[in-house]
């Protein structure tokens, strides 16, 4: 585990180095969702496959989440964007990166891309849309319900029910519900200790003309029964370079419930826009920072081995 100080916060960062190392492998930065999510959602799903396909992967816990520091305030989307700028700087990643965001992580990816277009090579948004009035209202309503109107024990039960509505694999199995309840308790602690419930719905909205002029390619991945179908349909017409893929039978939790499909779709799309380059020549400085053996970087698989 590597802790990286950036922008005044200690961030938990995990990286899987690319296999078949090329001189300058495309760098993919993964952005997880809000409240119940951590970098683990990528560490155990997309990241190993991306590293195996020659991408340098960077995962980190967003402020307040996972193992990253939890400041009491500063939870609008623009605060997360400021963190990402600082983190990329701290990691020496000055060239444009590929962002892959899940749910709120996708919302963050859009905000970052609109305000720092020169640092983004592409955006993949899984069940996500930019901040808009509908998003903010839905977020505020859910947070109000969870934090203001229900006693703690009922809030947890309500949260578990809500989670069931976005999951396509919820079975009623007690072990599954116990895991969801743990996630709910974590989210409750975050909400209680910080201003996130007040801040997140007040996040800045990207001006329509800025979205319309977003130069980087955008991939939208949605569950067939997900939460942002209308926004996704709008984005496919509003964004100049946008493709949308719908995963049949899945809901909002499509990333962790259909990781192989999400991985396949995203890698195929990235191959079109940023093919992994075959090894050639000596590693440059940027690669050296992401190479196996560099601080906090572990290979997805052994650098030498069975040749699988």
């Amino acid at each position: 585990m590597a802790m990286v100080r950036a922008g005044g916060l200690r961030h938990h960062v995990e990286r899987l180095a690319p296999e078949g190392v090329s001189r300058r492998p495309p760098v993919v930065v993964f952005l997880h969702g809000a409240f119940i999510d951590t970098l683990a959602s990528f560490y155990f799903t997309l990241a190993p496959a991306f590293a195996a396909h020659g991408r340098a992967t960077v995962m980190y816990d967003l402020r307040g989440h996972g193992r990253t520091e939890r400041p009491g305030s500063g939870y609008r989307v623009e605060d997360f964007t400021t963190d990402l700028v600082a983190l990329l700087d701290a990691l020496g990643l000055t060239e444009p990166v590929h962002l892959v965001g899940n749910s709120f992580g996708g919302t963050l990816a859009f905000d970052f891309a609109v305000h720092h277009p020169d640092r983004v090579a592409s955006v993949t948004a899984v069940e996500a849309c930019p901040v808009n009035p509908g998003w903010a209202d839905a977020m505020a309503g859910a947070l109000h319900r969870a934090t203001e109107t229900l006693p703690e024990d009922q809030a947890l039960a309500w949260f578990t029910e809500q989670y069931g509505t976005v999951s396509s694999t919820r079975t009623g199995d007690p072990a599954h519900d116990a895991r969801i309840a743990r996630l709910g308790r974590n989210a409750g602690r975050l909400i209680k200790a910080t201003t996130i419930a007040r801040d997140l719905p007040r996040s800045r909205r990207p001006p329509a003309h800025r979205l319309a002029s977003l130069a980087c390619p955008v991939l939208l991945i949605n569950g067939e029964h997900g939460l942002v179908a209308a926004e996704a349909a709008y984005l496919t017409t509003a964004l100049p370079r946008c493709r949308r893929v719908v995963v049949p039978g899945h809901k909002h939790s499509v990333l962790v419930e259909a990781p192989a499909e999400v991985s396949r779709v995203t890698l195929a799309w990235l191959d079109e826009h940023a093919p992994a380059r075959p090894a050639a020549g000596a590693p440059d400085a940027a690669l050296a920072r992401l190479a196996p053996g560099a601080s906090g970087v572990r290979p997805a698989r052994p650098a030498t081995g069975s040749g699988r």
Partner: protein
Amino acid sequence: MTSTDPVPAGLARTGAAGPPDPDAVLAEIGSMIALILEEYAAGLPEITRETRLGEDLELESIDLVTLSGHLAERYGERANLAQFVAGLDPDAIIALTVGDLVDHIVAARTSVAGE
């Protein structure tokens, strides 16, 4: 992993070329889990092969990322969990037992020793 990597001390007793001792691995994984759980470790049940990571230890997926790092540092990169559990859904990951991890480590180290 290369043949020049040092064999961790706890594994050396079975011989550098032989498979590691599962009981030693079990004990070490127990220590790593106690480290991750910090103050909660005092109330832990005894960790056996059958102990479940989620239901019994209440480890969360981010805890498993930390454990993965400890395993890779101790036993070499082949022992990291990212590839081991890739493709399992969150429930399946959290349903893993300590014995599953021990078997993974022994297999990973045996594979290295056989190269």
